[in-house]
């Protein structure tokens, strides 16, 4: 059993970063995730693990610092919230194009524009469908507890390095701000130069030794024939992720006639909704995607064979529901329910939506 603590989701991100041997954090203050950098600055990891922590002049700078650090084969990360993540999209697409590993946490708040500082899930499209320009994907992990905020820092880095691809923790203002019991990971030392050489020695910009060719980190290729091949290589990587990295959780799906599909905070609410619905005699279960990209398409298809309808519950105007519908492909009714602008739906509202849109609907 690791060390147990009562902590905020955002604080745990900082703690987990230090403990998993992260080399560098570059960030810019924005509500509701400023606790990440505040915790790091208070913990002063540069004095213990040697981790670099830097407050950048903007989100644009912080993501490009991540680009620079990732180019050196280092474990680097940034965190922000929706408007800041929008600013980072340029850097994220460069990082994806240059095939670099890094970790980004988005503590989503309601938009569009400056929006609100309250929790939302309205950045699903941005996180899962690219976000910046070009054909690319992030690995997207959706924590629904403070414990998962902790676990996904390590998992995010693991997957990022496995695929040389940026990974994102898609959290929200509720998960980031709430306090829960968390079992912290043990300290792992930062990688030594020798370990980095072993892991990323064939591409990282660590200084050109006499016995090797230059390492050039770039996303530029003016020859379209080659650029197409590079794109195919990326697509093959995404296909492999879709085959091997799908993660999800099924709750009370065995006897279910209806299914909630929900991630993050909404999945927590749906667990209460299941209880309320089952007391009323409605057999409903929950499919909780843990990876939003790659999306659990097959498990949803499988459930669609045996249930009567699905309700995608999101704090958005209906984004993930498109992927649920693509998976179900018209076999059963799929509807969306969500509250917008930073409102968290109540469990009763969710059950009512199921009754009206799916059970009573048709």
């Amino acid at each position, binding site marked *: 059993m690791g060390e147990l603590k009562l902590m905020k989701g955002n604080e745990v991100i900082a703690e987990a970063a230090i403990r998993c041997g992260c080399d560098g954090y570059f960030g810019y203050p924005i509500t509701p995730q400023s606790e990440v950098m505040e915790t790091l600055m208070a913990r002063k990891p540069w004095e213990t693990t040697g981790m670099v922590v830097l407050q950048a002049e903007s989100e644009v700078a912080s993501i490009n*610092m991540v*680009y*620079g650090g990732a*180019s050196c084969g280092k474990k680097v990360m940034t965190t922000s919230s929706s408007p800041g993540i929008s600013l980072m999209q340029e850097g994220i697409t460069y990082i994806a194009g240059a095939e670099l590993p890094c970790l980004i946490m988005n503590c989503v708040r309601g938009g569009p524009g400056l929006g609100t500082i309250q929790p939302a899930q309205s950045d699903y499209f941005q996180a899962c469908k690219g976000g910046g320009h070009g054909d690319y994907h992030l690995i997207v992990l959706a924590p629904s507890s403070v414990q998962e905020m902790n676990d996904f820092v390590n998992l995010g880095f693991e997957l990022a390095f496995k695929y040389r691809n940026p990974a994102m923790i898609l959290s929200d203002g509720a998960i980031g701000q709430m306090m829960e019991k968390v079992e912290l990971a043990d300290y792992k030392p930062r990688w030594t130069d020798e370990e980095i050489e072993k892991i990323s020695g064939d591409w990282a*910009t660590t*200084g050109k030794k006499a016995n090797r060719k230059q390492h*050039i980190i*770039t996303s530029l290729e003016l020859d379209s024939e080659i650029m197409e091949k590079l794109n195919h290589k990326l697509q093959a990587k995404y296909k492999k992720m879709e085959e091997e990295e799908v993660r999800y959780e099924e709750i009370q799906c065995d006897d279910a006639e209806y299914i909630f599909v929900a991630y993050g905070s909404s999945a927590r609410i749906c667990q209460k909704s299941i209880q309320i619905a089952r007391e009323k005699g409605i057999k409903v279960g929950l499919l909780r995607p843990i990876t939003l990209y790659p999306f659990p398409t097959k498990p949803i298809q499988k459930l669609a064979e045996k249930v009567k309808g699905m309700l995608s519950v999101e704090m958005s105007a209906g984004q993930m529901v498109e992927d649920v519908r693509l998976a179900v492909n018209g076999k059963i009714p799929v509807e969306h329910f969500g509250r917008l602008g930073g409102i968290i739906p109540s469990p009763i509202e969710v059950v009512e939506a199921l009754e009206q849109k799916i059970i009573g609907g048709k």
Partner: protein
Amino acid sequence: MADLEKIMKEENIVYKKTKVLTDNVMHYCPGCSHGVVHKLIAEVIEELGIQDKTIGISPVGCSVFAYNYIDIDWQEAAHGRAPANATATKRLMPDKFVFSYQGDGDLASIGAAETLHACNRGENITMIFINNAMYGMTGGQMAPTTLVGMKTSTTPYGRNIDLNGYPMKMTEIVASLPGTCYVTRQSVHDAASVKRCKKAIKKGFENQAKKIGTSFIEITSTCNSGWKMPPVEANKWMEKHMFAYYPQGDLKDAERDNPDDYIKYIK
């Protein structure tokens, strides 16, 4: 031919291309300053023996392909963001030598914030700033450093202050920041200036080992295609007009000018 082979012996060599420069044919236009500056950087890297410790950050602009010519590890940054890449690279690997290589559009316009803040934090990096008063790669549009009255593809009637504001003296601005230790303005238009420029670049790299802050080296340059001038005419035009607005020489040398402050700084 036989005579030539007789002459080409090791003991007769008075000048030779540094090995840090690759054999790739440069894509730059005839008369362009980039090629000369690349050569100087490569020579400095060879002379300091830091080829295996140097990481270059290339920009978006004509010198986007700098990595094809200088045989070291490179990161190709997003437009204007080279100082951010350089900041992280240097902080994560403090014993390496890290430099950014940027044009005026990249460094003074879209990357102005990254430039000012890297300099203000006193990052221990060397910034090479090629100022040819123009966006060369995209076809000669107005840059922040374009002189008043200068014709570009987006100022076809000449840069107009009311419309476009004033040419920006980025080098003077960064010299005013406490984080910079060495700020200089050089050129490479004749033999003497090439020699001086190399000395400045070398000093910029040497400062990294001393960990005394940011070294910023502007190289006032020509863009023959953009200026629509043959090389010799462009050099003369630069001396007459560019040097008048962008005076040559050191703007700041903390180690030389303020030895007390400098000692305080490194303590």
